[in-house]
């Protein structure tokens, strides 16, 4: 349940405040829950939160066209940008939650 709630918070936070909301929320979650498993849960939530926005974006316009165009412009396989869009918030959230948990422990 916490996973889904945090994912929703990540999605709403990103929509309202931009990408910076992800590490802030994850850090706060780490401080609240402590270090145990908070990194993985925050990372998964960020992935799910951004994934949900991407899914919604996909229903709003030609996302696949953009993906393949960007891949061609940057000389990368299309999937790399998609993976980066998932990994970037996951890494930020995971590391922020661990750091937050460590601060709580001290």
């Amino acid at each position, binding site marked *: 349940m916490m996973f889904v709630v945090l994912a929703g918070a990540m*999605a709403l936070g*990103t*929509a309202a405040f*931009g*990408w*910076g909301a992800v*590490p802030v929320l994850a850090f706060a979650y780490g401080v609240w829950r402590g*270090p145990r498993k908070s*990194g993985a849960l925050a990372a998964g939530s960020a992935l799910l939160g*951004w994934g949900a*926005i*991407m899914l919604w*974006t*996909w229903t*709003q*316009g*030609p*996302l696949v*066209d*953009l993906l*393949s*165009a*960007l891949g*061609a*412009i940057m000389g990368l396989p299309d999937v790399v*940008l998609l993976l*980066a*869009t998932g990994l*970037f918030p996951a*890494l*930020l959230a*995971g*590391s*922020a939650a*661990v*750091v937050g948990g*460590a601060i709580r422990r001290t």
Partner: protein
Amino acid sequence: MKATAATWGNAALLVAGLYAGARPIGPLPALGTFLDPAGGIWASVRSATLPEDVTHYVPGLDTEVRIVYDDWRVPHIFAESVEDAVRGLGYAVARDRLFQLELQTRATAGTLTELVGEVALDVDRRSRRLALAWAAERDFSRIEPESEIAAYLQAYSDGVNAWMAEMSPAEVPLEYRLLGREPMAWQPQYSLYLLKQMGWTLSMLDTERRKNAAAGLVGREAADGLFPVNSPIQEPIEPNGEGAARFEAVVLPPPGDPVPAMMTQLEAMSAFLGPLEVHDGRSGEMVLGSNNWAVGPSRSAEGHAILAGDPHLDFTLPSIWYEAHLVVPGELDVYGVTIPGTPTITIGFNRDLAWTFTNTGSDAMDLYRETVDDVAAPGSYLLDGEWLPFDERVEEYLSPRGSVLAVDTILHTHRGPVSQSGGEHLSLRWTVLEGQGELAALMGVNQAGSVDEWMAAMESWVAPTQNGLVADRQGNIAIRATGRYPIRPARTGGDWAYDGASSNNDWQGYRPVASYPGSVNPAQGYLASSNQQPVDPTIDDRYLGANWPSPWRAMRINELLRQDSLFTAADFASFQTDPGSPRADVFVSAFLEASTGTDGPTESGMLLAEWDRRYTVDNTRAALFERAMRELQNRTWDELTDSNGRRLVTPRTAILATLLRDPRNAWWDVRSTPDVVETRDDVLSASLATALEGARDTYGHESDGGWVWSRVATANVDHVLSFSPFSARDLPIRGGPETLSPNAGNGGNGASWRMVVELGEEVEGRGIYPGGQSGHPLSSAYKQQIEDWVGGRLRPLRFPRTVEEMANISRSRATLRPESHQ
């Protein structure tokens, strides 16, 4: 200890992630703002389609403006005052073309480095050396603050900035996301920048550079023959009463001795104005030309005037043009294309008349060789025996983050900016830098009610010189080559650099408007222009320019219009993609004659003879002809190559056509065969035979399908940043070098807007351009018109009088309200 290491590792990861998220690294944009699915690059997808209805509040607006988009995403802007209509235009253009607005403006201002970094430094340096933005700022400072022009510039700026204030993160053009930049605010004077840019594109001629290069290689007399003041084929814009094009009996002076000093001057000119474009022989001709023509009631099937126009410019996505319709009851009701960034319709029609332009290509710039006090560190220049101090302008080039990349000090004489290279100091005098009247002219033109009013409005036009063609509902047609023509010292043209040490070489004013080339309601019942020499020199031999484009397109359209028939708008639309070619008619005959011996025609001759001389998409012989033309030019103009074997300049094909009449001229002799003196027919037959070998090597055997024209020559419409997924390439189009719809070189330029207007009881326009209204690459309106453009089809241009008439065709609406109503 293990847990601490993991924590530190995560902390490092977090810091790295935050840094990469917030700051660009190398060419990569900041990842956070880029990948953010709610407001980053992915969000662009959500703005590909216009919302059905929006309301925005705009500062400065007096009353509500309604913008109704039709099924081609053309905004029909209904306002209560011209100023408010202009605000609506600024808003609509920014909404669809924001990135293009900034890119074009920065290109003129020489501030591209601030957008794309150091890679643009050389381009920026050239722009600033030419003083375009400097001149625009000076012109802006001279506009009366209370004048109508000032109000329109401010209104347009308000509209652009209002859109920027209202747009959501998803509506920020995705190019900004890719570059990791934010849009810049619009200033009223930027509209003048774009008019200067138009002047640069259309009047920066290379006459002096070409002649210098030729003189450096073969002497001045030969250079004068190769790049003459008068076209050797006369088919002028101002009717000369002759029933056909006239080929002058010109004898080209033979190649002479090289003049090395001319090459030094050429280097200085190239450092200033840019290097000469080296043609690869495919056409040897510019294609940044245009066509326009009109018939009066006596030559139209419906008994009223019809006008057609198609400016030929570089193809880009989004297009250089943006369609719009502005309606202010009782004051303005005009439809046409605008250059994004300018507050008027440039080419179009209103309820009373239609107009269009072709470039005149007159000589509007001169170079002066200045004598300076100190070549290494000049502080003053010599004029009539006195040393005058240079004016100095310091130009600073900034990176996207604001650091200084370079600083230049640019000198000015009383003539204009100065450039130095190899010890030569050249100053530039150019009408584009001498004030502006284009905006007032276009605003007047938009509201003109008759040919006379239109011609009067155009009198303030300065540069670039344009062949403005107009037709009205009363059946009048008129053309005038409008723009400032410098009066130069007696017995000189501006086709060579002047000695700057004497004020006798300065311009002595401008020709009066009444003396401009032109014609009103001529007896022949039609008017046409295609960038050819405007006046027959046997009628008026005053210097207007030199090295005029070969009049092949002019010959073709005159040939079509001289037919004994009455024309319709549909005829005009088909003429715009007519595949016929007087150039091919002249040269194919010559090739065939030279390739037919006592044993009959050669194999290459037989193959060429199968061609109907039309550049249709599916023809299979134009490829052979074009290769033969390239070979012919390589062999004939072999004296014009530098020590690396690179041909520096290529005379117009009209000069080559003239040379065909002189079979033993020294130019036919090929330098690489010193033991043989070649004649015209030797060169023609050898060129054709080599072309056949080359065609088979490149395209395969003629029976294998590789010679189909649509595979050999295509049009390419590239994105403004050359992003290939956002470009439209390899488009098969009808036309070849110097046909009415030209297709040559890299396929990157040609008919940028085609328009035909019938001026009957109701004015009916048709048009098309190779692009679409939206600058959003994911929008269905981004390339919407390309398919019809490729097919040579025009679409009816919707011209409603009221919002209510748009009920069935409206796709989207935007309502702009005064800020005070918020």
